[in-house]
């Protein structure tokens, strides 16, 4: 029992913070919000230099073989700056999935390249932008002589047009649940693949539509067993949920700081506004909720790494607890700042939009409430 970060983890956080601040801090996110895609390209090279892209890659593929605890410790820092780029998509979702399901060939083809920073990944899951997973996976996949043919349009693909490869979920079997789902690794440079950026609430992490026009892929593109990828997909979604939650915890930590600074410096009615209990207690509550969310993230990350039986429930606890509460933390930060809090210049709205955009993505809090209780009752 030692619920603290290691010195090594603290060190990487410090380095990450110094690096991001030297590059402009949250200005990087603002550049991406304004539509500057180069910022992701530039950043990615640096992240690779710092070995961040290699964290979850196994040692045999030139990585560090670290798990979610290490990754979330880092992502908390990137979240503080709303750092753009598909790091959680690549490192939390795709890499462990490739490692788990991939053939030697697939691993060899992708993992070292990811570690080097030469390949970025995202995932294309939703065929319907209004349904929950796994029901929202309906993509038509026809079997061909030497592989499969994909036809249809995926939506809500994070950074879809700014990555090299996508993990695409298709339905090769019957039903609408976890069964019958197959995964494919598809290059975005294929001619039959077209991406279109969607104006997204969180413009630091834009969503894309990705259209497959009778895209033929060979057997080498099939990731894992045909029909059988539902469980692995669910695990990948869990890792991603924890990763993104960690980023939002980092953002919430920053929001508490911003409100505290404001409460200390800004004067109204002749005294710093943080002396007013309404403001002081609201910030105290923000801090409590941020710390509580952080606790759940730490535990879930550890439980996923350790393969604990309550890992799935722990992930659901994160989203159940944090989805709306962190959102409110950001809203409260905006309110604490008065009129300035509602301006584009204040960072609060960047976080607020991230929290809302993330709310129902890969599982709404309601989905997670249901799953949490199912798991809990199964344990009794």
């Amino acid at each position: 029992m030692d619920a603290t970060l290691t010195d090594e983890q603290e060190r990487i956080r410090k380095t990450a913070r110094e690096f991001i601040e030297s590059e402009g801090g949250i200005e990087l996110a603002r550049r991406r919000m304004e539509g500057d895609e180069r910022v992701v390209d530039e950043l990615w090279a640096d992240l690779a230099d710092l070995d961040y892209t290699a964290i979850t890659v196994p040692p045999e593929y030139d990585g560090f073989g670290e798990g979610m605890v290490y990754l979330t410790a880092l992502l908390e820092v990137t979240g503080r700056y709303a750092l753009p780029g598909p790091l959680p998509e690549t490192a939390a979702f795709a890499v462990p999935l490739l490692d788990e399901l991939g053939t030697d060939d697939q691993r060899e083809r992708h993992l070292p390249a990811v570690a080097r920073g030469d390949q970025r990944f995202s995932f294309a899951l939703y065929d319907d932008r209004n349904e929950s997973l796994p029901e929202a996976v309906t993509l038509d996949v026809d079997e061909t002589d030497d592989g499969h043919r994909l036809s249809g349009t995926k939506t809500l693909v994070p950074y879809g047009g700014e990555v090299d490869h996508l993990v695409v979920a298709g339905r090769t079997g019957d039903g609408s649940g976890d069964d019958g789902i197959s995964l494919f690794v598809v290059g975005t440079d294929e001619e039959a693949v077209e991406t279109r950026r969607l104006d997204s609430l969180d413009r630091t992490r834009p969503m894309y539509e990705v259209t497959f026009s009778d895209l033929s892929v060979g057997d080498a593109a099939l990731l894992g067993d045909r029909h059988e990828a539902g469980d692995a997909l669910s695990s990948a979604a869990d890792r991603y949920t924890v990763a993104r939650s960690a980023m939002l915890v980092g953002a919430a930590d920053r929001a508490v700081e911003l409100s505290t600074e404001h409460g200390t410096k800004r004067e109204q009615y002749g005294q710093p506004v943080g002396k007013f209990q309404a403001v002081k207690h609201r910030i105290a509550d923000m801090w409590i909720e941020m710390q509580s969310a952080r606790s759940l993230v730490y535990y879930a990350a550890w439980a996923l790494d350790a393969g604990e039986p309550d890992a799935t429930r722990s992930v659901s606890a994160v989203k159940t607890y944090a989805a709306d509460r962190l959102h409110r933390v950001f809203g409260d930060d905006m309110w604490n700042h008065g009129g300035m809090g509602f301006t584009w210049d204040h960072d609060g709205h960047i976080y607020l939009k991230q929290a809302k955009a993330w709310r129902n993505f890969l599982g709404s809090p309601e989905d997670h409430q249901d799953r949490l209780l199912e798991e809990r009752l199964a344990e009794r």
Partner: protein
Amino acid sequence: MNFDYDDEHEAFRQDLREWLAENLPSDWQDGDRQLPEGSERERFLRDWQRTLYDGGWAGVHWPEEYGGRGASLVEQTIYREEMARARAPPQINVVGINFVGPTLVAAGTEAQKERFVPNILSGEEIWCQGYSEPDAGSDIASLTTSAEKQGDEWVINGQKIWTSYAQYADWCFLVARTDASGEKHEGITTLLVDVDQEGVSMDPIHQASDEEGFNQVYFDDAVASAENVVGEVGHGWDVVMTLSAFEHSTTTIFSIEQDYLDLLEYCRDETRGGEPLIEDARVRRDLADLDARIQAAKVSHYRNVSKRSESGTPGPEGSMDLVVADELRNDLTNVAMDVLGPEVALWEDGPRDGQLADDYLGSYGSWIAAGTGDVQRNIIGERVLGLPKDDKSQESHRA
């Protein structure tokens, strides 16, 4: 106790409904209620303001002698209900019609009334109000924008912020400091300032919602003539208090109700996982709770209207209308986002072309006009309930 309307009132409602059916912009009636973008917007809004004026529906609460209908408080309530139900476009001269006009009628000189009042209702002159300052926030009385008497003119220097409609405005109802030697509520003077002069410039404020609705207004040796002082020099705080009394006569609860009914229909019609959203008891709890809160807020508003009809003056209870409506709008727009599927992640390419997202984001800025919930709760605690005043906040916020 009686929530019925008598025949006269129903006739008033009927007249307005019929007029709206004939005069609302046609796109609007078809359900496309987006304001035009860019410079088109001002044209559109000025036209609508003129249409309202021509129909006699621009300032129903104004006395008949100034071109209004002399509508009673109940009729004003009906007016707001119907405009919300029709989702009519906003009035570009809302500041002039709701605040400046009535204030001039109450506190202006004969010359001011003659010069300014007719052009307000017709929308020929659009007004903004220069209150908040970067270092004053809701603490209006600590303003520093100065007006100095030079001959027959006042020379104005300083900066205002959160000034809505300034981008369209012809005139500004300005609160300035004319004497810095006394207590902060003293030495304040209200002036009518022509915005169309070299000494006045403005910048729009880029909002979190990616829109521009508020402005910073800079006064750099701007001038106002001596006869454009409202009330007495150095007694502007009294005028501000008079004017703020009019603010409480507005409420957004009726438009909140319309948005709620939209949300209800969405949840009835939309399915997820094959089930109508409304079959989820969580959704029902959220909707029913909003429904009951909206009904409560409406009836509370009616009660305030009735009380004010009796007493003739608005009380601090109006703070309740404000804080309740602000929180309702914030909660409602959040629920409207939360019941969406994962598509909640989209903005302009998302549901209703981003309108839901705009409403949701906008709800975080709504209090800029009304003062924060914290301030309203101070007012309720101190002025309604008589709790001991915080020495610091005493009298120094708008009510």
